């Protein structure tokens, strides 16, 4: 059932060229250099320290590493992070994958 739904979504995305973040319920991430990290449509904060931020997204987690992190803004589905970002990781069910 879930697989089937996923397939429909991919089809919609390809055939009607709808934006993927809307159709796939995926987060939209904007990164400005290594200074700012801006994420929309996340599903909750899992971990936050000065060196790491882990956010729950549709299928897994997004993990941002760096140092001197400050959450400049927290809204229900958005987060803006400021600091020095060194890496962004997508932790899926299968494992880590670097962007």
């Amino acid at each position, binding site marked *: 059932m879930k697989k089937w739904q996923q397939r429909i979504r991919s089809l919609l995305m390809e055939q009607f060229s709808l934006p993927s973040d809307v159709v796939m319920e995926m987060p939209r991430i*904007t990164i400005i250099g290594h200074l700012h990290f*801006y994420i929309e449509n996340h599903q*909750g*904060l899992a*971990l*936050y*320290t*000065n060196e790491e931020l882990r956010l729950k997204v549709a299928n897994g987690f997004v993990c941002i590493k760096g140092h001197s*992190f*400050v*959450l*400049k*803004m*927290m*809204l*229900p589905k958005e987060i*803006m992070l400021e600091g020095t970002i060194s890496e962004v990781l997508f932790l899926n069910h299968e494992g880590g994958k670097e962007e």
Partner: protein
Amino acid sequence: MKKENSPTIRAYITVQIRGARPELFLQKCAGKGISIWDVKKIEEDCCQATIMFRDLGALRKIRRNSLYKVSFVDRKGFPFFLSRLCKKRFLIIGIFIGFLFFFVLSNLLWSVKITGVPKEIEEKIETELEAFGIHPGVWLFSLDTPKDIQRQLLNEVPELLWTGVNLQGTTLHLEAVEKTIVEELPPGEPRNLVATKKGIITNMYVSKGRAMVSVNDYVVPGKVLVSGNLNTEEGENNTDAEENPGKPIAAEAEVIANTWYEVHVSIPLRYQAEEITGEQKKKHYLRFGDVQLPFWGFKDPDFIYSQEERREQPIHFFKWELPISYVSKKISETEKIEEQRSKEEAIEAGIQQARTQLENELGPEAVILSEKILHEHTEHGKVELVLYLSVEENIVKEELITQGD
């Protein structure tokens, strides 16, 4: 991207959240719609965040069902600033009173400086000023305009020829010039007294000198009345022992003569006059530039004819003139009177007019004895009168005795 920059006009607070994984608590808050910014992790179990003050209630509600501890670190924003100020009430009151003090003091009259006149006239002016309500300690804006003060002073102090009133800061500078009783001739110099007008002498009071005329003599201008030359005829020396015998002295005398004047007056039979009924209304404004804000007396009086008197006083702070000024308006109701008078009344008024005219001309010492109508006729609604007035006055003028050498 919506960025809520620390809004200073609104109140916001910085809170510290303690407990295991405080970020989860913050996430919960964010999920409830509380906007959070500047989140920092201080310690493993301690997070610092800033929220709006009005969201505090919602935050407390969330905390109630959790194990987290919330403490407040800092409060910022204008409302907090205000409430902090309120706590230092005495400081504020002090500053306010201080300003008020300076404001009041810089709008008071501190001193009146009179220059240019001798001490006794200065004192006289001071008492007069006191009577007008001008003395150190009165409000500057209750003062009349310098012009008014000048006029009043000149009216009340007859010794003054001219006054210059100038308000400089909190000091009223008053420069006055005394009417010098024209003593162009140096005192003590030998002189004769001569007549200035033609007339019949009624009285003579000679204190020094030798009378050359007697009572009931008719004199013409230039006639020597009292001579300072004591020994022209017999060489007799009078009481003036200290004077060098034989030398002419300064004659001193008062010679009252009966003089006469012809005065032409014309009086209209119809006249219009405007009279103040006594009904009046005061309005007070504060003026900022072109804007006048009334702060007392809002209603317009329903006068048909009225006279408006407007006074403006700038308000000072220290030596600076504030852009605010105090304006008071006095609106007095007037009545227009149009009257017709009979010929007799017109003549009566004409005589009165002639008398005052002559009195003004001759000064207070002259006494008008009688008046006669020489000629009258009515033309174009006017009565033309030629009056004959007889006056008793001092006709003496001093004249130096020129010693030929």
